[in-house]
């Protein structure tokens, strides 16, 4: 589903002393099938933005379009539930939403609400358990005596089981160990490619934005600050630092190499090993000419 924001503004508690303009005149489009990273400083409006994607919030001005669904200030959406079926949202700390007696029931909760046939649910459960890398043996256990990381995986499985076509992720790996973070992000990326999902990822990790996203939106105080391909965005170090964002380590490293040896290596999602070989060959080339 194509997604577009057209001059969207959102104000929390309008006409009170607590009035807060969380989004200001925001416009962008996300073509179906793209992987978009939304980044910005704490409080820049990222979570507010993504709550517009499944109609939890309606813009106070402007228009949000998700496929055939239109969200506007004064128009109630009648088909909000079918919109939510298509847009799966993994919130910050999703493990807080677990409540069923068993893991299996909790995963089935979403699809059941959307009237998915029981046979289909039974089929999806092992698939999503495999995707989040949890053993099927724990399905009948209550979700509350798992570790935090495992609970997170169960919660994610519960969203994936809805089989959404748009996947919205609000810092899905915050507070996990580094290896778990990588695993979960790789899993999302794989799903994104296999199922041709449209993925919107809110993240504080420039590394993740660079590695996974093909488009990036940077928010600052509720307004769009920059937008473009991550490789292009990360060329503008000073502009990023003005809003307290850093370059990913690898870009930083490649810049230093360029300054030091005068060889430029464009970033093409190389692995560490590939990069090392590339640097070696290029450096050898430089020294041979001398």
């Amino acid at each position, binding site marked *: 589903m194509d997604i577009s924001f057209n001059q969207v503004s959102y104000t929390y508690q309008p006409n009170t002393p607590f009035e807060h303009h969380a989004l200001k005149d925001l416009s962008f489009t996300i073509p179906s099938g793209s992987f978009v990273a939304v980044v910005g400083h704490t409080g820049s409006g990222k979570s507010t933005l993504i709550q517009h994607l499944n109609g939890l919030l309606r813009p106070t001005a402007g228009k949000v379009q998700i496929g055939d669904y239109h969200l506007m200030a004064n128009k109630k959406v009648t088909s909000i539930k079918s919109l939510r079926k298509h847009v799966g949202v993994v919130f910050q700390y999703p493990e807080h939403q677990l*409540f069923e007696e068993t893991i299996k029931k909790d995963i089935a909760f979403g699809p059941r609400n959307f009237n998915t046939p029981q046979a289909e649910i039974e089929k999806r459960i092992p698939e999503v358990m495999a995707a989040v890398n949890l053993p099927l043996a724990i399905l009948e256990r209550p979700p509350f005596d798992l570790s935090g990381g495992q609970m997170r995986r169960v919660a994610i499985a519960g969203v994936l089981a809805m089989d959404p076509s748009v996947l919205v992720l609000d810092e899905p790996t915050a507070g996990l160990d580094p290896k778990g973070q990588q695993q979960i992000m790789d899993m999302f990326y794989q799903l994104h490619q296999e199922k041709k999902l449209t993925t919107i990822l809110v993240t504080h990790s420039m590394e993740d934005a660079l590695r996974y996203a093909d488009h990036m939106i940077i928010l600052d105080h509720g307004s769009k600050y920059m937008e473009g391909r991550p490789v292009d965005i990360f060329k503008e170090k000073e502009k990023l630092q003005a809003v307290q964002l850093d370059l990913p380590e690898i870009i930083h490293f490649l810049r230093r190499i360029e300054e030091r040896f005068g060889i430029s290596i464009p970033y093409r999602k190389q692995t560490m090993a590939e990069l090392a070989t590339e640097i070696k060959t290029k450096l050898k080339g430089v020294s041979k000419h001398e």
Partner: protein
Amino acid sequence: MNNGILIGQYVPSDSFIHRLDPRTKIMTIFFFVIFVFFANSTLSYAWLTLFALTVTFATKIRFIFILKGLTPVWFLIVFTFLLHLFVTKEGTVLIEAFALKIYSGAIIQGVAISFRFFLLILVTSLLTLTTTPIEITDAIESLLHPLKKIKFPVHELALMMSISLRFIPTLMQETEKISKAQASRGVDFRTGPLKDRIQAVVPLLVPLFVSAFKRAEELAMAMEARGYQGGEGRTKLRELKMETIDIISLITFAVVILVLFFLRT
């Protein structure tokens, strides 16, 4: 979530009312609430209104905002007025329609009582608007201090109060977060038959209880780890202190009350 509902909400500002010692404010309001019932003439009502409005404007909070915040209470005020209108049977009959007789005394009574009600709510809402919950708790602990002599657990009561107050916003945020998460998983809290809507509360309540218990346990451990062992010998970070401005305020209020008694008929 809490759009527009103001009762119990603190609005920061730099007015002198905000800076007053919370005990001054609580005592003033306590006595105001009592003395409102002594007003019995137009003049005495006008005098108390003047006082209430002066204080309201001194808080520097937009008046329209305060009035809007009282919206849920308007219903009660109007209800009180109507009740008196139809029930009181004093004075001369003014209007007679169907089986109803409206007396002149009823109108006077109705206006007086509902106006009294309005003054009470306005002034008490000023307390919570200009005083943080923590200040209120500290003040209550300090004002109730004499009760310690009769083994009344003043400190424990104040601690319980401040912990509950501290966690109300957290709990509200949590409720909002979880209800959004469950709405995203297809729960419908707003429409559908009553039975479904009651069932929809389960996915909201269970996580709330789980996190509330977890939080309570963590808090208890954190308090113990930091050496909390009850109120005995515990000092305070925020010492309450009566300043000159508090004395002046209390004296002014006493004068207001004295004048009230002259204006009574």
